[in-house]
C-alpha cells in the first residue's frame, strides 16, 4: 500500500477479503456439535400467554430442547434494560415496564419471542418451532402513540399509566411564552417523522458456545459494541461474570444503530448453550429482523416559530410525542430527548427554545437509535419550519437562513449544546453554487413546458456526534461513560498492532486507523494491523455508533501514539548518544537533527525488546495504551440542496440533482468520507420518498419484508455532488468531526422542501409516495382553478 497518511485516498485494506468471498461473518462460523435455534413468536400484538405445549415439537426429528420464559426466569436471567435514565419534568423517574427475553405472561408486540427450539439443523428447528402450540388470549392493542395516551386505551405495562413513559421538558418555557407575545409573525406546523427499519444487509446472528469445564461462555455476534454487550450481559442479565464471557463481533455487515443493542435472541443463545450443553447458533430471517430489530424515528410534533418584524427568530416552541414501541430498548430514552431536543437550535441564533417530549408505549416493535438518532428528527422539524417560514414572510430560503445564522463561536444554545466551530455561510454558498441555484427559474420553466413540476429545497443541518463527554452524559442520565480506548503494540520487528474499542462494520477502520500510524511514523500501512471486535484482545471500549470512531476512537489512538513516540525517541536518543529533543521521526527512521545519524523504526523497536541497552531505569518493550474522553460533542454541519421533478399525472418524484456541502473538520480519508455521505444521503432519501414501517390497527406490521418495505434501489437515487469545507474541531487532537450520520440527518427535509416547492403544497408528509404527491397535486390544481 505504501505510506499513506492523513488526507490520503488510501484504498481499503479490508476489501480483499470481502471482494473474494473471504469475509468472516457470524453466520459463517460453524462449531462442532452445534445446534440451531428457532424462536416461537407471537402472532398477536397484545395477548396473554395461556399455555405453551411443546410435546409435539419435542417428538420431531433432530429436536434437542424447547425452552420457555418460565425456565429463563427460574434460572435468574435478568430483564432487558434501558441504559439511560430520564426523569419527567415533575422529577419522577421514567416508567419502565419489564422486558423478558422470552415472555412467559403477556406479549406486547407481534414477533415477540415466547419460546426457543434447539435442534440439529436450522430446518428442523424451524419446523419444530411451528409445531409448538401456544394458546393466547388476545387483548386489545394500540399502535398510535396519541391514542395510547388517551384514557381507556389498552394498557401495556402496569408501571406506565396511560402508557406514558416520561413527560420531559427542556428550555425556558416562560421566556418562550414571553417572546411569542411579542412576535410579529408566527409559523406553525405539524410534522410527522415516519417510522423506519434500519435494515443492515447482514441480518443479526449469534453463535454461543459454553465450555462447561471452564464455566466460560463465548458469543460470536453481530455487534457494533462487543464490550458493551459483554458488560450488559454480565452485569444485568446474569449470564456470567465478565472474565467468564468473551464476546466476539467478527465481520459485521452493517449496523446503522440496530446492532448496538443486546437483544433477547443473542442472550437466549448464551443461556441455551449452557442449558443444552452444545454450541447454539441463531440466524435472523429478514422478516424476523423487521419484527425485532429496533426501529427508528416515529415522532409526531407540533412546532411554532416566532419572528420579529425584521424576520429574526425570537423563539421556538415544540411539542413532540415519541413512540417507543412495546419496551424500552437500551438507549431508547436518550434518542427523543438529549439527542433530539438539544439540536432544535439548528444553525440559528435562537434566544429562547422550549420543547416538551412525551414518550409512549404502543404494541409495536421497540424503537431506538437508527443512523442519526434524534438529530434527523430535529433537523427535519427545524428545516421544514425554516423553509415554511421563509415562504410565509416572502424571503428566499437562503436569505432567511442567513439572516438567522450563528456566526460567532463558541455559541451556547438555549438547549444545552455549545457549538465549538462552524462556518454556515461557507457551506450554504458552496451548495448554492454547485446546484446553480440562480439558474433554477429557467430550469423550472423548461420543465413546465414539458408538463413537469420542478422544485428546489434546501436543508442547513447541524448535528452533534462523537458521542460524548462521559461526565456530561452521566449527568444527563447515561448509565455508561462514552470515552474510547486504544493500545498501540509495536512488535520487535517494527510492525504495529493497534487495538481499538471502536468497531468497524463497514466504516473502513482497518484503513483509516492505519493511516494515523503511517502519518506518525512514516511506515507502510501494510506494516500496521487494526485489532477490534474481541473482548479477549481489546481490553475495553465503547464501540461504534453516533459517528464516534474518528473523533473519539482515533483520538485515543493519537494519545497512545504520543506515548509510543516519546519512548521510541528516548531509546533512539540513548542509542545514538543524542539529546532526546534532537530526534526527529521521518520516513520510518529516527534521525538526529543536523547529522547523518539515524536508526530505522525497526531497529529502535528491536532495541526496546532485546533490552540490552536501554536508558537507565526504562522498562523493556514498546507498547502503550490510552483512554480518551471527549471534551465536547463534535458539530458537523452543512447545506444540502435537492432539485426534483414531479410528474403531476403520476405523482412520481424524480431527483434531478442533489448537492451536499459538508463541514466534517479535518478528514483522514476523503474516499471513505464520501462513501459515508453517499450512504447516509441514500438512507435519508429513502426515508423521504420510499420507506415506512406501517402497522394496521391490530398491530400487524404490514411492511415486514422487502416485498412491502421499500428499500432504496440503485435507480431510486441520483449520483450526488459532494464538497467539503473545513473548520477544524477544536475539541480533539485531529480536529475531526463525525461524518457517518450527516447524510441521513440532513437530507430528508431537503427532499421534502423540494417537492413542496414543486407542487406548491406544504401538507406533504414522509414518505412522499407517488399516491400522496398525486393527491396533493390534484388539490393544488383544484385550488388554482378556483
Amino acid at each position, binding site marked *: 500500500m505504501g505510506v499513506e497518511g492523513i488526507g490520503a485516498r488510501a*484504498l*481499503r485494506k*479490508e*476489501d*480483499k*477479503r*470481502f*471482494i*473474494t*468471498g*473471504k*469475509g*468472516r*461473518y457470524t*453466520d*459463517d462460523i*460453524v462449531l462442532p456439535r452445534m445446534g440451531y435455534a428457532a424462536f416461537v413468536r407471537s402472532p398477536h400484538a397484545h395477548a396473554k400467554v395461556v399455555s405453551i405445549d411443546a410435546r409435539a415439537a419435542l417428538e420431531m426429528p433432530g429436536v434437542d430442547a424447547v425452552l420457555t420464559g418460565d425456565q429463563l426466569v427460574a434460572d435468574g436471567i435478568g430483564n432487558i434494560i434501558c441504559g439511560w435514565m430520564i426523569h419527567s419534568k415533575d422529577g419522577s423517574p421514567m416508567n419502565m415496564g419489564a422486558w423478558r427475553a422470552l415472555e412467559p405472561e403477556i406479549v406486547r408486540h407481534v414477533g415477540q419471542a415466547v419460546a426457543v427450539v434447539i435442534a440439529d*439443523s436450522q*430446518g428442523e428447528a424451524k419446523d419444530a418451532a411451528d409445531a409448538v402450540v401456544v394458546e393466547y388470549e388476545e387483548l386489545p392493542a394500540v399502535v398510535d402513540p396519541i391514542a395510547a395516551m388517551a384514557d381507556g386505551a389498552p394498557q401495556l405495562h402496569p408501571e406506565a399509566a396511560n402508557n406514558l413513559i416520561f413527560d420531559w421538558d427542556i428550555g425556558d418555557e416562560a421566556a418562550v411564552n414571553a417572546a411569542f407575545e411579542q412576535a410579529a409573525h408566527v409559523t406553525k406546523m405539524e410534522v410527522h417523522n415516519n417510522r423506519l427499519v434500519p*435494515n*443492515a*444487509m*447482514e*441480518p443479526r446472528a449469534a453463535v454461543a458456545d459454553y465450555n462447561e469445564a471452564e464455566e466460560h461462555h463465548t458469543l460470536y455476534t453481530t455487534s457494533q459494541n462487543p464490550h458493551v454487550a459483554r458488560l450488559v450481559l454480565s452485569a444485568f442479565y446474569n449470564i456470567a461474570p465478565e472474565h467468564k464471557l468473551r464476546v466476539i463481533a467478527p*465481520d*459485521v*455487515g*452493517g449496523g*446503522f444503530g440496530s446492532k448496538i443493542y443486546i437483544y433477547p435472541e443473542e442472550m437466549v443463545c448464551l443461556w441455551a448453550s449452557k442449558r443444552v450443553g452444545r454450541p447454539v447458533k441463531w*440466524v435472523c*430471517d*429478514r*422478516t424476523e429482523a423487521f419484527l425485532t430489530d429496533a426501529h427508528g424515528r416515529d415522532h409526531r410534533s407540533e412546532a411554532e416559530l416566532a419572528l420579529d418584524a425584521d424576520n429574526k427568530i425570537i423563539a421556538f416552541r415544540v411539542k413532540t410525542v415519541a413512540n417507543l414501541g412495546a419496551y424500552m430498548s437500551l438507549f431508547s430514552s436518550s434518542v427523543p430527548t438529549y439527542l433530539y431536543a438539544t439540536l432544535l437550535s439548528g444553525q440559528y441564533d435562537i434566544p429562547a427554545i422550549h420543547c416538551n417530549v412525551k414518550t409512549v408505549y404502543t404494541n409495536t416493535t421497540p424503537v431506538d437509535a437508527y443512523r442519526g438518532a434524534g438529530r434527523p428528527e430535529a433537523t427535519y422539524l427545524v428545516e421544514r419550519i425554516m423553509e415554511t417560514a421563509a415562504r410565509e414572510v416572502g424571503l428566499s430560503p437562503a436569505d432567511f437562513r442567513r439572516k438567522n445564522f450563528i456566526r460567532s463561536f463558541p455559541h451556547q444554545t438555549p438547549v444545552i449544546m455549545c457549538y465549538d466551530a462552524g462556518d454556515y455561510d461557507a457551506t450554504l454558498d458552496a451548495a448554492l453554487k454547485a446546484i446553480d441555484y440562480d439558474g433554477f427559474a429557467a430550469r423550472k420553466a423548461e420543465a413546465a413546458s414539458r408538463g413537469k413540476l420542478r422544485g428546489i429545497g434546501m436543508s442547513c443541518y447541524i448535528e452533534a456526534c462523537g458521542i460524548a463527554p462521559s461526565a456530561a452524559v452521566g449527568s444527563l442520565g447515561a448509565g455508561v461513560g462514552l470515552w474510547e480506548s486504544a493500545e498501540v503494540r509495536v512488535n520487535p520487528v517494527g510492525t504495529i498492532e493497534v487495538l481499538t474499542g471502536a468497531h468497524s*462494520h*463497514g*466504516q*473502513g477502520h482497518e484503513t483509516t486507523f492505519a493511516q494515523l500510524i503511517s502519518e506518525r511514523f512514516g511506515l507502510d500501512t501494510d506494516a500496521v494491523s487494526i485489532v477490534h471486535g474481541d473482548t479477549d484482545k481489546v481490553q475495553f471500549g465503547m464501540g461504534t455508533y453516533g459517528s464516534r470512531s474518528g473523533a473519539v476512537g482515533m483520538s485515543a489512538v493519537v494519545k497512545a501514539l504520543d506515548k509510543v513516540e516519546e519512548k521510541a525517541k528516548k531509546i533512539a536518543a540513548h542509542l545514538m548518544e543524542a539529546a532526546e529533543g534532537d530526534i526527529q521521526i521521518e520516513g520510518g527512521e529516527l534521525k538526529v537533527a543536523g547529522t547523518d545519524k539515524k536508526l530505522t523504526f525497526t531497529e529502535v523497536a528491536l532495541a526496546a525488546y532485546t533490552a540490552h541497552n536501554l536508558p537507565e531505569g526504562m522498562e523493556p518493550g514498546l507498547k502503550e495504551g490510552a483512554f480518551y474522553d471527549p471534551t465536547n460533542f463534535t458539530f458537523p454541519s452543512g447545506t444540502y440542496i435537492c432539485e426534483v421533478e414531479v410528474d403531476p399525472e403520476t405523482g412520481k418524484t424524480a431527483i434531478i440533482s442533489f448537492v451536499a456541502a459538508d463541514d466534517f473538520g479535518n478528514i483522514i480519508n476523503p*474516499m*471513505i468520507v*464520501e*462513501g459515508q*455521505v*453517499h*450512504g*447516509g*444521503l*441514500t*438512507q435519508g432519501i429513502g426515508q423521504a420518498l420510499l420507506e415506512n414501517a406501517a402497522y394496521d390497527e391490530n398491530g400487524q406490521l404490514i411492511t415486514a*419484508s*422487502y*416485498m412491502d418495505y421499500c*428499500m*432504496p*434501489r*440503485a*435507480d431510486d*437515487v441520483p*449520483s*450526488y455532488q459532494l464538497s467539503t469545507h473545513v473548520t477544524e474541531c477544536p475539541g480533539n487532537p485531529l480536529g475531526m468531526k463525525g461524518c457517518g450520520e450527516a*447524510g441521513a440527518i440532513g437530507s430528508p427535509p431537503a427532499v421534502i422542501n423540494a417537492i413542496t416547492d414543486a407542487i406548491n403544497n406544504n401538507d406533504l408528509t414522509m414518505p412522499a409516495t407517488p399516491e400522496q404527491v398525486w393527491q396533493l397535486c390534484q388539490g393544488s390544481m383544484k385550488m388554482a382553478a378556483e
Partner: protein
Amino acid sequence: MTKVAMTLNGKKVQADVEDRTLLVHYIREAQGLTGTHVGCDTSQCGACVVHVNGKAVKSCSMLAAQAADAEVVTVEGLAKGGDLHPVQAAFREHHGLQCGFCTPGMIMTAVDMINRYGGNLDEKTIRHELEGNICRCTGYQNIVKAIKSAADQMSAMKTAAE
C-alpha cells in the same frame, strides 16, 4: 435426502442433502463456501447471486437439486490464481463496498451484466440492472462507478485481444 453433484468453481463436488435444500445452503453449508450470503427470505436482496451455467441466479430461489450437474460459479471462483477479476478490482479501486455483505452478490450481478452488455453500459442501464441487488451502505454511487469502469476496461481488453 438426495445426492446432488455439480461443478462448483471448476471442481466436481457432491453432497447428500435434504430434498428441500436451496442452492445457497448447498453452497454455504454442504460445500463450506461462505462468500455467498443470505440477506432476505423473499429473493429481493441479491446477496446470494451466483452464476449457474453462465447466468446470474439468486441461489435462494432454486433448489440445489435443480442445479444438479450444472456449472456453478460463486464469488470465490472469480479470481484466477492471485489475480482479481477486473470487476473485483474495480469494486476496490472505486470504493464500491463498505460492510461487504452485499458485495459478493453485487459482483456476480455485475459480471453477468458486463457479459450481456459489454462496453455498452451507461449509468442509467447499470442502475436499472441493479434493481435486484440491495446495498444499504454505499448509496450505490461507487458501485455504479466500479461497474462502469470494469465494463470499459473489459471491453477495451476484448477489443485489444481481437
